[in-house]
């Protein structure tokens, strides 16, 4: 069967079971859009290409499937870069199709030409420029395979206009791609080493990260922890991989981690880290990270091992398969924790938790942002998929919302991209129309991709924006308060649109909430309607995120904030 390049693209999307893409048209992709017009594949028209990538990324994080977007050449392509870099830092499987000028014009500085494969080389897992229609089908198949296999990541496929118009024979049953062999099997010797270490450990601790969610290993990790009563802490990306309401859960570790999680890391004698890469926000000063512990690190990617923290026992392998093997090995060899030692260890952690609980003070007439987050949990019973923007809103969400399930907390961890939350929430809601989806936002961040409210309105994608409006670029202001003697250089955001009117102008519902007593009702009202809603919560302006490990300090030396904050 002879097909045009543009038809082959859509056929291949069908082959990959893609039923939804996020995109924005332009000259170089007119042929593809013409095919889409006749196709069953659903296309969501975003308002900025960055939004398309974040939406595809949110879709991927919530479903575990590959997210797809389509944009035009030149500025359309360059607008995707922040989105791609965001996905790359968090290892999210997406495929980005970009239009390109005809192959005969490449290199000529043609109208709307950009070397997008060159630009995105350092921030993609891999990318392709398709030079002829004959290689198109195999390239697309390869792109999807690369995006989802091994350690996942974004793949960009650049499609010159003439390649889309050219014809070739298409036979989906006969597409050959290179054989990628990426799976490693853990060796029994290493499992017996873990067994030995666990048998000797008096204060073991599990640390879970994004690799557990990406590797679908949350069940195995949870079993390991519960069966052998090992307490668990996690990175920002690991939230949801172990139930946040389980007594063994210590909360997040690191810069804004809980006191007891950081103390546990600092005092444990065995740290089993799964699917983490020991980012500097997590470790504090590297020299004093987990100073008393032997560290076991399980990760699919050898480059994550011994990069920041030197570990005693690296195990390279898929998190799910490795944890499964470990569970079997421990059961077979009848591992049983030393009961009294374990009891002592858990009691010690409990003492830290009682000494410095995660708390805030909701008194008076001003809404505390943490209170809104707790109320959100109450109103939804935690049955909600949460995206965030970046800044204090993100850290408070990580601290105060108890995530019980994987793929339910969706945030830009590695790159920290403001403007991520709203389009990501749109992507999530498209994947799960029947689920509650909330973007917990800051007033600064929301303005970075606010145009996507139009997308939500057009398709009635009923996301709820919980705007924690403090009138500041709050996280930056916090650092200015703590480290720059309150010189609030360019962080005051008081000059802002009226968000309620703005929401209404976009055709969605806007609400303003100024009193603590109105918070719960507002949330209930918002979830009662099947429409996008923006809730403008006017919150305490100079609230800080505590506790905090100051940059350059150890995890065990946390700044707990003022008495008033933690009383």
């Amino acid at each position, binding site marked *: 069967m002879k097909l045009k390049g543009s038809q082959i693209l859509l056929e291949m999307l069908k082959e990959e079971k893609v039923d939804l893409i996020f995109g924005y048209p332009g000259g170089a992709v007119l042929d593809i859009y013409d095919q889409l017009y006749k196709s069953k594949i659903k296309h969501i028209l975003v308002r900025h290409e960055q939004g398309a990538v974040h939406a595809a990324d949110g879709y991927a994080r919530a479903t575990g499937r590959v997210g797809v977007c389509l944009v035009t050449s030149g500025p359309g392509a360059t607008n995707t870069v922040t989105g791609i870099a965001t996905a790359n830092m968090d290892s999210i499987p997406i495929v980005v199709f970009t239009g390109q000028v005809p192959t005969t014009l490449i290199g000529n500085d043609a109208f709307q030409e950009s070397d997008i494969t060159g630009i995105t*080389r350092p921030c993609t897992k891999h990318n392709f420029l398709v030079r002829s229609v004959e290689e198109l089908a195999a390239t697309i198949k390869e792109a999807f395979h690369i995006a989802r296999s091994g350690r996942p990541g974004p793949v960009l496929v650049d499609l010159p206009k003439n390649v889309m118009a050219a014809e070739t024979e298409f036979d989906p049953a006969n597409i050959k791609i290179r054989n990628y062999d990426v799976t490693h099997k853990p060796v029994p010797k290493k499992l017996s080493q873990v067994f030995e270490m666990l048998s000797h450990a008096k204060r073991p601790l599990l640390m879970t990260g994004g690799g557990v969610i990406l590797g679908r290993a949350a069940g195995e990790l949870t079993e390991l922890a519960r069966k052998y009563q090992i307490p668990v802490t996690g990175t920002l990306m690991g939230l949801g991989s172990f139930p946040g309401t389980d007594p063994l859960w210590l909360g997040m570790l690191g810069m804004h981690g809980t006191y007891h999680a950081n103390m546990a890391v600092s005092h444990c004698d065995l740290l089993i880290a799964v699917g983490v890469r020991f980012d500097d926000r997590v470790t504090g000063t590297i020299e004093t990270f987990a100073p008393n512990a032997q560290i076991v690190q399980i990760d699919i990617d*050898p480059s994550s091992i011994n990069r920041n923290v030197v570990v005693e026992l690296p195990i390279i392998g898929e998190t799910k398969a490795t944890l499964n093997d470990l569970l079997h090995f421990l059961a077979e060899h009848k591992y049983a924790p030393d009961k009294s030692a374990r009891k002592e260890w858990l009691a010690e952690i409990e003492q830290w938790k009682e000494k410095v609980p995660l708390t805030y003070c909701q008194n008076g007439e001003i809404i505390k942002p943490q209170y809104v987050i707790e109320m959100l949990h109450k109103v939804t019973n935690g049955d909600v998929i949460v995206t965030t923007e970046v800044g204090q809103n993100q850290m408070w969400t990580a601290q105060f919302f108890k995530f019980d399930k994987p793929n339910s907390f969706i945030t830009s961890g590695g790159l920290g991209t403001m403007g991520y939350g709203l389009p990501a929430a749109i992507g999530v809601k498209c994947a799960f129309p029947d689920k509650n989806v909330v973007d917990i936002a800051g007033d600064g961040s929301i303005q970075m991709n606010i145009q996507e409210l139009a997308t939500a309105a057009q398709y009635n994608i009923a996301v709820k924006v919980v705007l924690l409006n403090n009138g500041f670029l709050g996280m930056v202001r916090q650092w200015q308060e703590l480290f720059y003697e309150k010189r609030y250089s360019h962080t005051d955001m008081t000059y802002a649109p009226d968000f309620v009117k703005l929401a209404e102008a976009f055709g969605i519902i806007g609400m303003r909430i100024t009193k603590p007593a109105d918070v719960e009702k507002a949330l209930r009202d918002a979830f009662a309607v099947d429409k996008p809603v923006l809730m403008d919560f006017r919150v305490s302006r100079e609230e800080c995120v505590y506790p905090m490990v100051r940059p350059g300090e150890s995890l065990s030396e946390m700044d707990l904030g003022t008495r008033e904050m933690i009383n």
Partner: protein
Amino acid sequence: MEKKEHIISILVYNKPDVLARIAGTLGGKGYNIESLSVNTTTQYEISKIVMTSIGNQATISRIENQLQRLVDVISVDDLTNVESVHREMVLVRLDLTEDKKDQIKKAVDDNQWKVIKSGEHYVILEITGDKAQIDLAMARLEPLGIADITRTGLVALELKN
């Protein structure tokens, strides 16, 4: 840990931008490439890149891991600790000025350097050898006044796979 020169042999798929990927990956992560040579292999679709980099074992392992992540990289081997032979080539032009002329001719004879082209006013030499041999030749060439020089990167081959 001791810093030393490591010879890394990389098999890659012969794609148009594979060199850019490798150079970009290492440059972007702050690793240094001392020398680089790209060779074809007996298979058209596969190329071999030999690069040298100075660092301690941990740094070199990180380089290997980073390269291994690239989709077009087939294998990465540190040849420093396996039995292998190494060669570099240097082309040098010496100008036969009045004051150096005799000295140069004598040195070429004494060292049995290979002259690949010569004229009334110049001589061009081809010198191949391992690093020690090249360094020795360079030390002897220096006083003769090097007019121009070009050097290949190092190439290496294992005694067995």
